[in-house]
């Protein structure tokens, strides 16, 4: 039976609204491993309100990363079959499961920002370039050229806010794990997304560094940033407004 997590959500900070910016219904995702079909999500329903911080907690293989990818428009849901109701991800009145590839690309560019467990910075680029590259994908060459001063200024300001202004010209290989993750967060925030999606953001860090990253998330949340954090760690999850437990591809509670 599918639980509706959003119905149990409680509001703990004053920086958010009660209106859901994203509402996912009956999310189903199956992977094909050879001849075997492996269902990962079996009808997940989830709502994210503006300014809300939601933790998706689950064991390894529970489908939490897959859920994050679906919410971020990186992956697609299963096609509806038989009598099962179709999956939908409503974002500000638009069903992401039915929009064109182009609109989905645009959604990833402007509406969401990803933070990954392994940072996924581009090794050839400097810290500043790793942050601005996300802005570059959001606009054409000429538009970027026109606005490059403002974008770089925004990126510097962001890096300053997360304590990396002295590392702007460094390459990822010259940074510590925590610093890399901060750069990844800055990259996710450069386009001022409605929703920050973080996949095990502290999973590759020691406790102290991970704690500082979580402090950063908390600070961002207090500033009104909506976010979904995928984690298998109860402590990490506990910092969020709401916890959604994912077991065997289904939401258990929050």
């Amino acid at each position, binding site marked *: 039976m599918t639980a509706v997590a959003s119905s149990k959500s409680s509001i703990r900070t004053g920086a958010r609204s009660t209106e859901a910016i994203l509402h996912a219904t009956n999310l189903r995702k199956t992977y094909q491993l050879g001849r075997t079909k492996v269902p990962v999500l079996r009808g997940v329903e989830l709502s994210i309100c503006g300014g809300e911080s939601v933790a998706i907690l689950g064991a390894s293989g529970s489908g939490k990363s897959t859920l994050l990818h679906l919410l971020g428009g990186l992956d697609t849901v299963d096609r509806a079959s038989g009598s099962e109701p179709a999956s939908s991800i409503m974002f500000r009145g638009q069903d992401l499961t039915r929009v064109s590839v182009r609109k989905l690309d645009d959604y*990833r560019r402007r509406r969401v920002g990803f933070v990954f467990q392994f940072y996924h910075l*581009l090794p050839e*680029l400097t810290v500043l*370039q790793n942050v601005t*590259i996300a802005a570059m*994908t959001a606009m054409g*060459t000429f538009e970027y050229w026109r606005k490059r001063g403002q974008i770089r200024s925004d990126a510097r300001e962001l890096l300053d806010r997360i304590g990396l202004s002295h590392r702007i010209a460094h390459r990822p290989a010259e940074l510590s794990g925590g610093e890399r993750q901060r750069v990844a967060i800055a990259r996710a925030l450069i*386009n001022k997304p409605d929703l920050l999606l973080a996949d095990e953001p502290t999973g590759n860090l020691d406790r102290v560094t991970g704690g500082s990253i979580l402090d950063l998330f908390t600070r961002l949340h207090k500033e009104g940033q909506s976010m979904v954090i995928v984690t298998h760690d109860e402590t990490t999850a506990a910092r969020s407004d709401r916890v959604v437990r994912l077991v065997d591809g289904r939401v258990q509670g929050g």
Partner: protein
Amino acid sequence: MYQLLLTKRYLTSKIMPLLAALAVALCTAMVIVVWSVMGGFLVMLINSGRTLSGDVSISWPITGFAHYEELIKRLEANPEIAAAAPVIETYGLIGLPDGRTETVSIKGIDGPSFSRVTGFEDTLYWRPINTPTEKDTTRADLRLGKHDLWKQLFEGGKRLVRTEVSKSDRKPIDRPAVVPGISVSGFNFREPWGFYPGLPFIRTTEGAKKPVDMFMLPVDGTVTLNVLPMDSKGRAIEMVARTFPVANEFHSGLYEIDHKTVFVQLGALQDMLKMNRAETIDRSGPTVVISDDPSKEEFVTPVVVSEAPARVTNVLVRSKRESYDTADADRLAVVVADIYREFAEAHAGKVPEPSSIRILTWVDQNRTMITAVKKETALVLFIFCFVSLTAVFLVLAIFWAMVSEKTRDIGVLRAVGASRSGVAGLWLLYGLAIGLVGSGIGFTLAYLVVTNINGIHEWLGQKLNLYIWDPRVYYFTRIPSQLDPTHVVIVLCGGLLASCLGALWPAARAARMNPVQALRFE
């Protein structure tokens, strides 16, 4: 924009793309050098062939046509025509001092007028020179320095005469002489440093050089020309042989011409071929009046009833334009044809009809040679371009490996909003950049090689005794090369296209990648 940034970064931070650019550079340089040398070779061949053929030729072979002096006047009155000259072209045998007899093309010319139409004077080999040829570092060329013999030979060569002292009154007289091509005699062998040694030798059957006690041909030696005159209906009359002294030798740079052509004074050849001016006399009456009174006996002066004017087989025409354009030659041929039409109308029935006469441009005359070299150039280019296709596969292989290596980056780009076409565009732009860098390096390399090809060749010869372009074989002192801007642009575009083609498949692969799988790639 991110494509530009990443292209720049990938290009400067990896060794593999630089290897791909190097492959493109080498292929580009190779094709440009080959095309430049072959193109230069063709131009040099055409120029050498054209040197002795003029721009347009009016031709009526074997029997020739009359009133050519008037035709020449009409031609030279045209503002587009610089000069015209009469020529007789025939084939015959040449008897050489060592007893050999060779078949040759014999051309009867009037030296001064022929020089106005062609570069004949410049081709005369034995002449005084002030500066040695480029490869003659030891100044071994006998023609260097002021030597009266060279001056005398040069002056004689220009007029095709040999000045001799009369045995009767000891006054100098000019005897009609021949100017054979430098390779006709078989005594001149070109040395690797590009000139004829002046002291001829014969190659023995063992391959050794046996000096010959003579210069050029024997200084006072002669050659014998054998020709077969024809009557006006093209019937052979009787073989005519005449011995001529040698005035000089010519060197056009084209072996086929230098090996098989002999120039002789026009008047002398007209005599031999019965193409000179002739009178028909009335033989019906007595030629001698016989009387009982010896004082009243007398020879009767024959009555000339008709006159056959002198004939030539060709009139060569030179344009006032110093252009090598085929279209210019075609336009001049039209002008010449119009003039000939008027000339033929004025001499109706006495000269060939305008529809029958052959009016050929220098391109038409050398078509076989030009076509052969053009085809050879095309074939060589095709082979080299085919070889250059390896660059496409090299770029493909390197890009394929790079796309695999950058799989996670592709996932990141997709996660931050890059579209499939944007990712494909990144790799195509990267391919284009490899092509640009490779083509740029290739062009620079080719430019350096082409502009210094003779120096490089010389260095190879000195250091490794490797003479790829042996003048004894090719008959050009220098390796010809001509960097044609159009050819360069075509090759550079080819280099860019090859790189983009090589990048196409990897780019499509990158674009098709599932971003989630790409992010999980290890």
